[in-house]
């Protein structure tokens, strides 16, 4: 039962041919098969948002979607957002505003912050509403909201 199926997913701007079992979750494909460990598993029950990635430029929790559903789509993970010596604006914003403490949830927040900017969100209330679906257990969210406000004002 459940033979492997061939699919192509554009992962971090590269077309990747895959031969996978239908039951493979996107997060397990990224972390275990492709060694993209920046996408974290926090809760595994669709609540915490640590596994957030962009699918066709929109946020999706990669623990709640099968890799096979992403055939012919684009997936962007935290690994495509910036480099250690060349941080992207959103990462700079989090760094400068102390938007992280342990950092476990941060990749998820970064993805949500990117979609925040695309959706023309501006006020603090809108940011807080938009962050529904991302949990942080250290910061109390204050500095995350500050970081995202700062990022939204960057050109």
């Amino acid at each position: 039962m459940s033979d492997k199926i061939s699919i192509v997913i554009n992962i971090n701007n590269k077309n990747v041919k895959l031969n996978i079992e239908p039951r493979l979750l996107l997060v397990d494909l990224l972390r275990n098969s492709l060694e993209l460990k920046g996408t974290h598993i926090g809760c595994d029950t669709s609540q915490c948002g640590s596994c957030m990635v962009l699918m066709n430029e929109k946020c999706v929790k990669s623990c709640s979607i099968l890799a096979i559903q992403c055939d012919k789509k684009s997936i962007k993970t935290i690994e495509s957002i910036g480099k250690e010596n060349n941080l992207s604006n959103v990462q700079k914003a989090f760094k400068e505003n102390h938007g992280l403490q342990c950092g476990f949830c941060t990749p998820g927040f970064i993805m949500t912050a990117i979609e925040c900017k695309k959706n023309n969100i501006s006020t603090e209330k809108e940011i807080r509403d938009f962050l529904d679906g991302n949990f942080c257990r250290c910061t109390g969210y204050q500095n995350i909201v500050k970081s995202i406000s700062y990022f939204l004002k960057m050109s």
Partner: protein
Amino acid sequence: MYKFRYHKPSSLKESISLFKEKEFPKYLSGGMTLIPSMKQLLSSPTDLIDIQNIEELKGIHKTENTIIVGALTTHNEVANSSIIKKNIRGLSYLASKIADNAVRNCGTIGGSICNADPAADYPAALLSLNAIVTTNIREISAKDFFVDMFETKLESYEIVKSVTFPIKPKSYYLKISSQASKYAIVGMFGSFDKDKASISITGAANKVFYLQDVNNQSPDKLKDYDFQKLDLSEININSDIHASAEYRSSIIKNMLPKLINNVLKDE
């Protein structure tokens, strides 16, 4: 995750014949309820039939008096649609309050109503607006569609193609939701058909229901209506870890004036 088979048909006909061949199949649209349920073995289909590529289930269209929303339309597409914002304000607002942004990017209106979660948001809009659910074989009115908790009028193989809503700019949705899941503890959708109110409530009972005592009243009457005297004894209001029946009843009575004000407010 346990093993299952996966199919990705490109037409309705193919989807239905696949469904009829398999042992315990399920249709997959956004998967925002189904995949997490399968991970916990709350649901364990042998075959998933992924309908995401079926074009005729997509799109938002306006006719003279109605808005037709394709079954695969995501919650964020409904929330951000300028057609829906302009013509059924309450529906667009409701969709913007479902779960969180990531779920709204994938979850679909068809998937949500077929699952018929008693605390889901959409059923309140369908019932209040008297929407029509169109499937591959027939049309079902919203009041017949929702049968009971997680139970609809649909045959197992039947596929929802679209939902047709009458145009009602004066409509609104309010909810008190579980802070963890955003599912409604009490959600209420209000609209007016000419001069008659139509209010439906989700999250508070085994399925979405009409508020009979208030329905058919005119806006003027409702402005001065004493909602505290509302008799909810005929309705079997839920008690669970989120709220007692007494608390839910109190939310209903206290949220109604705000709902009516918002329905009548011009945007």
